[in-house]
């Protein structure tokens, strides 16, 4: 038998630690209460904001409560008033009849000695007081205030209700107007010591020999009070039930309305996520069914339009592809013929030879324009796809620099590269990125006025970047966002010198966007401009910040930070984000 002793020990040990756990300090208690209140309040606020249903139910219940309270108070008051005035009326009638019968008994009294008078007074009072034990009335017979004769008959009380419970005001009123009943509401204490309202009615009786006496009838209102209590309790219960009922009704009604709205929201969500076949259930003729039907009609027309757009886009893609083939084949022949003529221009007249040269360069320009236009329309048709490959950006940059070296030499621009210390690997489409960099470099060389161009590489946690900075003409305020617009030129009056198509930066912008990267520009007139390409290292991992500065301000703060601490990538803000 081990179990009991173990039980006892367990109980004891619990008891031992109980005080510390059960009675926390007052401070922690209030803190806990406060935090509980706080979280409840927040929960309530959240529900209030998030749920239409909750809001409707709570406001309906509040309104119901107010109405029930007002109505209940009013009715209660009316009932209480009615009960009291009824009681006063019957009390007056009873009091009048008892007073007159007492008067007639006193009048017809034969013996007028003090003892028999007193005996008679006791009789009269005993008779006037209720015969039963229900204590429905008390009677007091006392000397009138202005009766200054010898007190041959003492004050007679039907029970332990004392004379002091008769208010002085009432006595004064009887003294002033002895021919009428005087009524007043007072508060007496019942046999249990609980204060009870009562009606007191006073009238004058004349005793033989003893003279003027006052006779008081006290009718306690305890029954009425009990009735009122019952009524009040019933009202309260009824009110609570009514408010709950109103709440329940609101719940059901809002449920009927909110449910379809929620379903509509769900279906709309699915539609917007691309499931164009989703429809609402629409049965019957009511408003909800109408909502469902018009919602479905909207979805139908959306689906139709999207289909049409898709068809259009397919046609467009097809067209681009066909144009591509149809234009390219004759262009190839022209190109071959042009080159052949160009190669033998030495044998021609000077004017024909010059024509051959012009033909040659313009074929080049035509070809690059065609290529760029086709590339742009491929982006527009959504037909451009990435061919991703883990690539070291240093190699890509190097190749882009080599491809523009001839142009740079021609313009006298020196290309300075600041590479990263370590590798700069990212999942990119090397052909597209090289094209972006080539475009940025050509742009920098063309607008760099022969001054050096700085190419900087950067890498951080989830992004790689290349910036191309020139010290040329720069960009006027507002132009940073325009440079990526198709066929946009900073100064239309400026002669086009190197035969760019005007589409290079626009294509680069689209290429960067295809990579989910950024291509941003900054520039200041006379200071120069900076183009920064930032690409995610892995697809689907968004760029938080670029590893390289874009504006000189950022450059300075980056340098300051680099001096202050170890190297850390600098966040970039401002500029035209793509």
């Amino acid at each position: 038998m081990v179990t009991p002793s173990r039980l006892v020990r367990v109980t004891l040990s619990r008891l031992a630690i109980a005080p510390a756990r059960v009675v926390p300090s007052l401070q922690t208690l209030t803190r806990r209460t406060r935090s509980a209140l706080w979280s409840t309040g927040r929960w309530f606020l959240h529900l209030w904001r998030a749920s239409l249903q909750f809001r409707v139910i709570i406001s309906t219940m509040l309104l119901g409560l107010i109405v029930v309270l007002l109505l209940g108070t009013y009715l209660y008051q009316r009932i209480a008033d009615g009960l009291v005035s009824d009681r006063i009326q019957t009390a007056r009638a009873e009091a009048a009849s008892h007073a007159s019968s007492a008067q007639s008994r006193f009048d017809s009294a034969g013996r007028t000695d003090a003892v028999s008078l007193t005996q008679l007074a006791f009789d009269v009072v005993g008779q006037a007081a209720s015969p039963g034990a229900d204590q429905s009335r008390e009677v007091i017979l006392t000397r009138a205030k202005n009766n200054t004769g010898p007190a041959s008959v003492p004050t007679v009380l039907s029970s332990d209700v004392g004379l002091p419970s008769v208010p002085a005001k009432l006595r004064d009123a009887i003294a002033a107007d002895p021919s009428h009943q005087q009524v007043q509401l007072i508060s007496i204490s019942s046999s249990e010591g609980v204060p009870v309202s009562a009606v007191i009615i006073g009238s004058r009786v004349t005793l033989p020999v003893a003279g003027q006496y006052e006779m008081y009838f006290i009718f306690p209102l305890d029954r009425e009070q009990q009735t009122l209590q019952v009524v009040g309790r019933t009202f309260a219960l009824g009110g609570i039930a009514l408010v709950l009922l109103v709440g329940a009704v609101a719940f059901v009604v809002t449920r009927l309305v909110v449910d379809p709205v929620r379903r509509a929201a769900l279906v709309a969500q699915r539609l917007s996520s691309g499931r164009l076949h989703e429809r609402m259930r629409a049965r019957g003729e009511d408003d909800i069914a109408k909502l469902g039907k018009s919602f479905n009609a909207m979805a139908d027309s959306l689906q139709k339009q999207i289909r049409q757009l898709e068809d259009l886009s397919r046609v467009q893609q097809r067209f681009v592809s066909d144009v591509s083939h149809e234009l390219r084949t004759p262009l190839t022949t022209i190109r071959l013929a042009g080159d052949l003529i160009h190669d033998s221009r030495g044998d021609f007249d000077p004017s024909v030879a010059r024509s051959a040269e012009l033909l040659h360069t313009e074929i080049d320009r035509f070809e690059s324009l065609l290529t760029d236009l086709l590339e742009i329309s491929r982006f527009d048709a959504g037909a451009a796809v990435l061919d991703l490959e883990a690539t070291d950006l240093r190699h890509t940059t190097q190749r882009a620099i080599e491809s523009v070296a001839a142009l740079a030499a021609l313009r006298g621009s020196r290309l300075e590269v600041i590479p990263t210390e370590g590798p700069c690997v990212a999942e990119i489409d090397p052909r597209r990125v090289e094209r972006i960099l080539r475009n940025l470099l050509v742009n920098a060389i063309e607008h760099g006025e022969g001054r050096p161009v700085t190419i900087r590489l950067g890498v951080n946690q989830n992004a790689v970047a290349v910036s191309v900075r020139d010290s040329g003409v720069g960009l006027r305020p507002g132009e940073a966002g325009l440079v990526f617009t198709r066929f946009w030129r900073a100064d239309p009056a400026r002669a086009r010198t190197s035969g760019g198509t005007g589409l290079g930066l626009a294509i680069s912008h689209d290429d960067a966007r295809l990579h989910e990267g950024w291509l941003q520009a900054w520039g200041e007139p006379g200071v120069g401009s900076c183009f920064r390409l930032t690409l995610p290292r892995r697809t689907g991992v968004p760029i938080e910040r670029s590893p390289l500065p874009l504006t000189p301000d950022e450059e300075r703060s980056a340098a300051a930070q680099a001096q202050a601490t170890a190297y850390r990538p600098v966040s970039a803000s401002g500029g035209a984000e793509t």
Partner: protein
Amino acid sequence: MKHRVLIVDDDLALSEMLGIVLRNEGLDVVLCADGSSAMAIFRESRPDIVLLDLMLPGIDGIEVCRRIRAESGTPIVMLTARTDTLDVVAGLESGADDYVLKPFKPQELIARVRARLRRSDEPEPEGLQIGDLSIDVAGHSVKRDGKPLSLTPLEFDLLVALARKPWQVFTREVLLEQVWGYRHAGDTRLVNVHVQRLRSKIERDPENPEIVVTVRGVGYKAGPA
């Protein structure tokens, strides 16, 4: 000996122009205007290289390419106006060695053609061993356990380039320059597609290559013996 070029293209102006350019380079030119007769003319003229347009009336270029490849390893250079990746890859996978995008410069085309013809001019007696393959460079044959494997000249060149320096990792760009003769960077998809084709012929399990191994982020190398 003059090399012979077969040009299969339905655009007569372009074919004629190509003929002029190539004849100026000292090559013999045979023209063919549609896909249906291409095979007959191919068998009859026995060209050293085929220039093939992808879009042809009759039988399309990809099918012609497949049929030529089925019976010979003659170098095929595709002429294509399509820049879409899928078209290019489909052409390469059907057996073309190289492709030129229209519009191209004459020098560009000639460089491609010369690069494909060049290998037949360099007979050097040399024997290489990589994995369980033995390569006879002069005899243009690859043998596993004495049984010859059938490779196209380009695939053979690719394998030889890798096998000559088994310790070296070749980037795609370097392979493009050495095997295809590109001066500047070209389309690295060429390398990817041909490495796949080569593996399908020489690897015991092409899914887990042991002879031509990918070095992630860099390129390819001939695997350890």
